[in-house]
């Protein structure tokens, strides 16, 4: 089979090195089942792996996949796990993640995964079974209005009406999932459509008339942006998930380094700028660094790229960055000016806009500004108290960072541990963080890490995949450890086990006078190492600080299957600094109140 790079976009930009999606030559076929055409089209679109669970409505398709050994199907334990896995796979590869689930409960179980992918702009195509066309609306067995349920959390939804439209619909779904601001697309497949017969012709270019994202920025706005950047005295680069493509991240580095502009990022943007560079401020926002948040509040120019001024980033809007002009570059025009007024709006793909913008900027040294920032960094570094005999979660992340040399793909769940990873892992490369930033889906970590690990198996430059999860979120989807074991996927799962739903406990401590209602898990938690062993994974335990390093090293050596490390950390450690909900960015608190 010969592989070639896709050139599907109507307004095709220059080919991008990170795009791994390949077009594969698939032989035409005549009088085939809809299912057959569907699988051939997936192969044509470069799909190597799908995630999912069979069921009645897709049994025919299931049967057909058995005849295509080149399509790898990872059978998960739950549909939510399948979507998170495809999402994780998509985030680290840039390819479309593909999910196959049955109708009814198969589709509803995938909803949380779809919403997660939607909020974080991840390209996922979810193929859902559906009852036969003539039975739709009859409350048939395992029938649900999948398109209706997923409408607000997808970029688009298709209902297949005939076998003849299977191939083109799939091509459109893939195009829509990837183009512009990426996101999930659902293709609902009635059982009879999959069984009907039609021909398969290898793909033609697909034009989706109503969806042609703007790739190149407006020249006039770009020159205005360059002017503002050149004359700014206190500029800050504020970057997000939109610059995770390596070629875009490279240009962000150039823009920052050539012009001495300090850089902060959202949770989703971590890794796009190297955290060991002196211009790196750390993450901003609710649990951002002092320096990053103060830099935003004192800046005279904010250059936002691929970020959307989310409420967790801005704090109280009325007092956000009071002195700053804002240049906002994003491929989605609807995020520009949505939360904060923007002085220079640029709609376009980060990479292509930066190609035009970077050469126009006049370099400056910003000496005074950088000194001011250095002073904040000196006085208010990220810090935590070391206590003898107690495992500190921040220390665990620091050690993970050292052992992996900042080279791992860090997958997190949601909660305190997620923030500690964001604060203490020394990210070096783009596409290194996989986390549910927008929806905040607990249970995301393990399956997403599994998907990311599958992608590493397909890759020539495999990187270790480390999942850091909490004991709460872990238990929501830890059945996928069984899946990882079944496929010998070397996922490293570190359960930061504090015996609490820790982030909620922290809020209860700080804002609800230490009334820990329904957040304690200790006593009812299982022995995670034993659970791991029962699931066919390696189970390890860290309960003393001196065990942290050797056990991490031991875990990282496991390469034939999953390993779960139960890291028994201090129960009531809090994430600081913290901007309380509703406060302005400069109103960070660094110490605990109540209880202490």
């Amino acid at each position: 089979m010969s592989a070639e790079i896709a050139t599907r976009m109507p307004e095709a930009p220059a080919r991008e090195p990170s795009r791994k999606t390949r077009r594969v030559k698939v032989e035409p076929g005549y009088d085939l089942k809809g299912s057959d055409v569907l699988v051939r089209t997936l192969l044509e679109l470069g799909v190597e792996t799908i995630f999912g669970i069979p069921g009645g409505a897709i049994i025919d398709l299931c049967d057909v996949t058995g005849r295509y050994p080149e399509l790898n199907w990872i059978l998960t334990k739950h549909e939510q796990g399948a979507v998170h896995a495809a999402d994780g796979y998509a985030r680290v590869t840039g390819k479309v993640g593909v999910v196959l689930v049955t109708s009814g409960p198969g589709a509803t179980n995938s909803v949380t995964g779809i919403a997660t992918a939607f909020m974080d702009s991840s390209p996922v195509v979810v193929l859902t079974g559906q009852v036969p066309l003539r039975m739709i609306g009859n409350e048939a067995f395992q029938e649900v209005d999948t398109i209706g349920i997923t409408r607000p959390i997808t970029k688009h939804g298709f209902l297949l009406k005939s076998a003849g439209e299977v191939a083109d619909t799939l091509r459109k779904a893939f195009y829509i999932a990837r183009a512009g601001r990426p996101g999930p697309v659902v293709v609902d497949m009635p059982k009879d459509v999959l069984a009907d017969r039609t021909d398969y012709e290898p793909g033609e270019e697909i034009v989706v008339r109503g969806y042609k994202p703007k790739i190149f920025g407006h020249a006039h706005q770009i020159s205005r942006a360059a002017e503002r950047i050149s004359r700014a005295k206190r500029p800050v680069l504020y970057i997000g998930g939109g610059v995770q493509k390596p070629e875009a991240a490279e240009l962000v580095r150039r823009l920052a380094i050539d012009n001495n502009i300090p850089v902060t990022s959202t949770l989703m943007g971590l890794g796009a700028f190297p955290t060991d560079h002196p211009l790196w401020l750390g993450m901003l926002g609710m649990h951002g660094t002092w320096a990053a948040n103060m830099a935003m509040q004192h800046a005279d120019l904010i250059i936002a790229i691929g970020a959307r001024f989310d409420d967790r980033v801005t704090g109280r809007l009325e007092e956000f960055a009071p002195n700053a002009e804002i240049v906002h570059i994003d491929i989605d025009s609807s995020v520009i000016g949505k939360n904060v007024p923007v002085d220079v709006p640029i709609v376009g793909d980060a990479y292509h806009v930066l190609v035009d913008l970077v050469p126009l900027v006049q370099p400056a040294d910003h000496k005074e500004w950088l000194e001011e920032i250095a002073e904040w960094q000196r006085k208010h570094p990220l810090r935590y108290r070391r206590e003898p005999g107690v495992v500190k979660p921040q220390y665990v992340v620091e050690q993970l960072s050292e052992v992996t040399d900042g080279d791992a793909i860090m997958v997190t769940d949601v909660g305190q541990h997620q923030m500690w990873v964001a604060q203490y892992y020394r990210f070096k490369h783009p596409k290194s963080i996989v986390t549910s930033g927008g929806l905040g889906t607990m249970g995301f970590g393990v399956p997403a890490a599994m998907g990311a690990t599958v992608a590493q198996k397909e890759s020539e430059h495999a990187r270790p995949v480390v999942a850091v999860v909490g004991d709460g979120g872990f238990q929501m989807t830890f059945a996928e450890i069984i899946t990882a074991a079944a496929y010998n996927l070397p996922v490293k799962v570190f359960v930061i086990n504090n015996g609490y739903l820790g982030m909620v406990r922290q809020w209860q401590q700080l804002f609800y006078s230490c009334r820990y209602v329904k957040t304690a898990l200790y006593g009812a938690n299982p022995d995670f190492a034993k659970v791991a062993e029962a699931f066919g994974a390696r189970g390890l335990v860290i309960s003393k600080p001196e065990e942290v390093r050797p056990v991490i090293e031991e875990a990282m050596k496991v390469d034939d299957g999953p390993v779960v490390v139960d890291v028994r950390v201090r129960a009531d450690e809090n994430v600081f600094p913290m901007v309380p909900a509703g406060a302005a960015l400069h109103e960070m608190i660094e110490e605990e109140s109540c209880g202490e």
Partner: protein
Amino acid sequence: MAQHTISVLVEQTFDALPRIAGLFSGRGYQIDSISVGEAEEPGMARMTIVTHGDEKIIEQINKQLNKIVDVVKVTDLTEEPFVERELALVKVSATQSTRNEIMQIVNIFRAKIIDISPKTLTVECTGGHAKVQAIISMLRPFGIREIARTGRVALKREFRGET
């Protein structure tokens, strides 16, 4: 808060209308009137949405509509001269003694009687929103039984000289 008339050219797929309606309900935007019908090109529909909100909300509505895959073109007609019409069918109670008076009102508004019964008249009225409101309020004292309105349809005005 200003009222805006937004014209949306959309592919006639099964999902286009609920997606657009869902955009408004899901994001808390107001729909004052919505109408949809086939457009000039086969397979395409033109939807006229009347909404209101501050500048920021109207901007978001335009941008969010543009993101919908089935939406081909969004035009905020409010920014330029446009013509707008609405059709209303009004079934009004009519007795022998009031029938003439109702017919006079109908004539004044250049409306039409399209159905008659011993106890009712059904009036068809076409015009701008204000005109339709006006005839309805003139007919109200006679006793309105039912009203069906199309919602507003609008197109950009081409010949600027006439206004």
